[in-house]
């Protein structure tokens, strides 16, 4: 029953967490989300990640294109503050339930 593993698993993305939307004390701007990338703790380290693509992956009940898994693509746009948090813009704004959820930060477009 187990599907034959055609490809060994490789992780070519960095794990990240959605922290919420860009906001001030009582106003939030949902077009930009804040993302905490694993292992990034200073503004200087964020430079490497600027422009890299992000994917917020979630599961749904209904099947679209034969799959229950759906994705919202985005990009890392700029650092947020001094501690390595990053601002990101997605193709469509992230849904509020994404707060605290995982996000994949890919290594492309690459410049190495």
């Amino acid at each position, binding site marked *: 029953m187990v599907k034959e593993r055609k490809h*060994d*698993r*490789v*992780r*070519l*993305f*960095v794990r990240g967490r959605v922290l919420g939307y860009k906001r001030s004390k009582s106003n939030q701007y949902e077009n930009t989300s804040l993302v905490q990338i*694993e*292992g*990034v703790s200073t503004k200087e*380290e964020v*430079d*490497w*990640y600027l422009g890299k693509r992000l994917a917020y992956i979630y599961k749904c009940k209904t099947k679209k294109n034969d799959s229950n898994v759906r994705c919202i693509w985005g990009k890392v746009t700029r650092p947020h503050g001094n501690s390595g948090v990053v601002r990101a813009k997605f193709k469509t704004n992230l849904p509020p339930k994404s707060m605290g959820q995982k996000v994949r930060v*890919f*290594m*492309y*477009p*690459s*410049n*190495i």
Partner: protein
Amino acid sequence: MLSLLVRRRRLLHHLLLPLFRPFPMAPSQPRTKSRNPLLIPGIGKFSRSKMYHKRGIWAIKAKHGGAFPRHDPKPASPEPASKKPPKFYPADDVKTPVPNRRKPKPAKLRASITPGTVLILLAGRFMGKRVVFLKQLSSGLLLITGPFTVNGVPLRRVNQSYVVATSTKIDISGVNVDKFDDKYFKKEKKERYKKSESSFFEAEQETKKLPKERKEDQKVVDTPLIKAIEAVENMRGYLGTKFTLRSGVKPHELVF
């Protein structure tokens, strides 16, 4: 008033100049500097009559029998007698779009990517695989090969942005990649079936088969490569392994 002698001398000079210094018929390189130096923007050193002489209009006229040569426009070809009035006149004046003359240049190749570099593919079917770079094609895409027997990656095109260049290089001097270009990889156009029910169902049954030439080309490219790979210790194993990120590994700190 100029003295008679001066005037006569000047006239003689003017007439005998062609004998003294026969100037060439036509300059091999066109004159770039103006014969009339500017004193102040808008005011030249020489007057109109002086310039007429300097430019040699008198000589050109003399060569063409007293008149400056004219090139009249060719008589327009007569319009076809039966010209139908257009079927459609737009209600408002329609602006014709300006033709786009922009030709995009192929992507500039990163300095870290040179022929023979081992690249890591970041996305796609072969993501994580370590692969050998052969050359950049005219479209800007990179031509790569596994080699096929080492890691299953055939001759393929890849975009520079989806690739990480490592500092490992392989000697590809023995490989001839001249015959590969974007046309080689172009997908064959499916024949458009005519809209009839029977053909609609038949068309789906065609299976894709890899043409022999592709397999042979792969071998031709790979054999010298594999020799170069075997020459280096552990290279074959290295190319056979996939790249992956692990816990605690931060790509921004990695040196590839």
